[in-house]
């Protein structure tokens, strides 16, 4: 099954490579990986989406922990968490499709970030599932280019 893993790592050069190389060396699935600085500039947070049975995911977590540059590894899958991904997508635009496209943008609470005579660039934010659905539904209009950020995730706050 799909797992979403949050990893705090040392904000040093080569850390991303160490993590990615470990996944490929051990033959683990790596669906997406995203990384950015945290409130502490010495620490970055990586969000990793992977797939595997319990035995494999348990190995993934242990192998992540074993890297010297990882500080904390958390499997968020079964914990209350918020998960978001950003989609930037440029679509073909025509007089005929314009209305439908704008309706769909509303459905996904997306935004228009750029518009030209024959193209429109939109952003959609949501869970990876929602992003998948959005891509499926926009596809008939003609996708010119798209970029996904990969998921980022965080624990839900406490009361």
């Amino acid at each position, binding site marked *: 099954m799909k797992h979403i893993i949050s990893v705090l790592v040392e904000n040093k050069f080569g850390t991303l490579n*160490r993590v990615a*190389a470990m996944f490929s060396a051990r033959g683990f699935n790596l669906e997406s990986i995203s990384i950015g600085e945290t409130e502490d500039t010495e620490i970055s947070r990586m969000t990793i989406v992977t797939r595997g049975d319990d035995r494999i995911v348990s*190995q993934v977590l*242990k192998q992540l922990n*074993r*890297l*010297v540059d990882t*500080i904390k590894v958390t499997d968020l899958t079964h914990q209350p968490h918020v998960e978001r991904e950003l989609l930037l997508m440029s679509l073909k635009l025509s007089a005929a499709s314009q209305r439908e496209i704008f309706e769909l943008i509303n459905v996904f609470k997306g935004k228009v970030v750029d518009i030209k005579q024959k193209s429109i660039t939109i952003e959609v934010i949501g869970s990876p599932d929602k992003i998948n659905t959005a891509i499926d539904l926009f596809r008939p209009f003609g996708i010119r280019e798209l970029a996904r950020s990969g998921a980022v995730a965080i624990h839900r706050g406490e009361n």
Partner: protein
Amino acid sequence: MHTNGEKLNGSEIFFESLRRENVEYIFGYPGGALLKVYETLHDVEDIKHILVRHEQGATHMAEGYARATGKPGVVLVTSGPGATNTVTGIANAYMDSSPMVVFTGQVPSTLIGNDAFQEADIVGITRPITKHNFLVKDVRELASTIRKAFYLATNGRPGPVLVDMPKDVLNAICTFEWPESVEIRGFKPTIKCHANQVQKAARMIAKAKRPLLYVGGGIITSGAAEELRKLAIEQQIPVTMTLNGLGAFPGDHPLSMGMLGMHGTYWANQAINACDLLIAVGARFDDRVTGKVDTFATQAYKIHNDIDPTNVDKNIKVDLPVVGDSKDFLASVLEALPEAKEDHGAWLELIEGWRKQCPMDYTVEPDSLKTEFVIDEVSKKTKGHAVVITDVGQHQMWTAQYYKFTEPRSIITSGGLGTMGYGLPACIGAAFGVTDRPVILFTGDGGLMMNIQELVTAVHNKLPVKIFLINNSYLGMVRQWQELFHQEKYTFTDLEASNPDFVKVAEAFGCKALRADNPESALKAIDEALAYNDGPILVDFRVIRKDMVFPMVPAGASISDMLLARLNPKTMV
């Protein structure tokens, strides 16, 4: 000797840091990026630099030294090709968990990434085969990085650490500060075993009818041989060892079952599949040990102690994982065990039956020489007390089967990576670390050639190593598989037409050399070699060319289905 607060250049900081880490020997080779270091070395007297003839040799020497002494081995090589030549040795140390710190010179930091002369991204290249590695970009971080490198190499599960040092960093000057302590927030190995898990393990041990200890290199690394001996003898639990675990328990003790796995003893492998409790300590269920995993120890409740949590449930699912240092585990279990003991008499008798059914023995003919005989005689003559180094292949398995290791840190062999060419340099490294026991190498004619240049290092340093060359003029283990499983197509394994005269080769290097081709001349040569201490001595044992190592578990078979002899290769027992 320098003090904190002194202004030093990078090279002086390098040596002062090694001094603080109590480094005795550096195995190295100079080069462009290291010129400043070798300039500084000119006036360093307390740390001895051993000049090798190939950087791969340096890494195996460092590992041989580390495994013989328990102290980290140190390597110093230049950038580019010097660095890339260390890759096999680093990978070897990584697979066998040997503590090692490799220092590589690097092109000046301003040139990094420019495809400069003798530039290689050695940090990138060695990331998957080091426990961790560093590129030092600022001379002010050199001392603390070296401190961290030694800390990482030797704590938790040991392993190789690489420190890449650009030329300008080695020239730059700063105030020397040796850090009092090391704090690495991402590295906190579990040493102490969880008390509840230990209690559970003790309860299982106390009530087991057919318990079996399966132990590996973790016993040697953690210095747990005494605790293991106590547990096995007090509870009357038989012990089987992995290749790198040999010596953890005395091989001449009745409870010792020798090695298990692909070329293990018949009785050890039968016992694995018959035991009701398997206590794995400091071992990692390697595929050469388990054979087919689905049939491995299926009747047993499995306890697994290892310091590296990734080893738990990696190859074999266990019932009771206990993460922590093996010495702590065994000591805690001993404490937790009740006074009353199960009687394991029937179990030990069952094992004895298997032992009698398929004993490890061989026949001696007056006109030909068997490797088993050579190793067995060396074992007897040294009373199992030597430090024995091997290369990789048939002679390695025969050594494991016939040399009766009686104490820890006695076998130094490439278990995980299976590196041909490991033996000679590893034995040289071991000889620098150990001077009160004979240091003996069993090697093959294939493996010896792979790093034969290091014979110079042995001769030049007058090391009294015994190089016992098991010469069948074949890549014997590959030949064995070709005969058994590859339609007897002996492609590129027959070396007879191309091998040199090894006695002459040795003599050209200035090494004393003998030859033996029958039991009588072999005994004479062994005696002469063991008595000779003025430098290295090589004995070219011309053994029976096509002998094979048995028993053997064919790849992918259950470990109790062993091939016992070549005459009937289709018969499974």
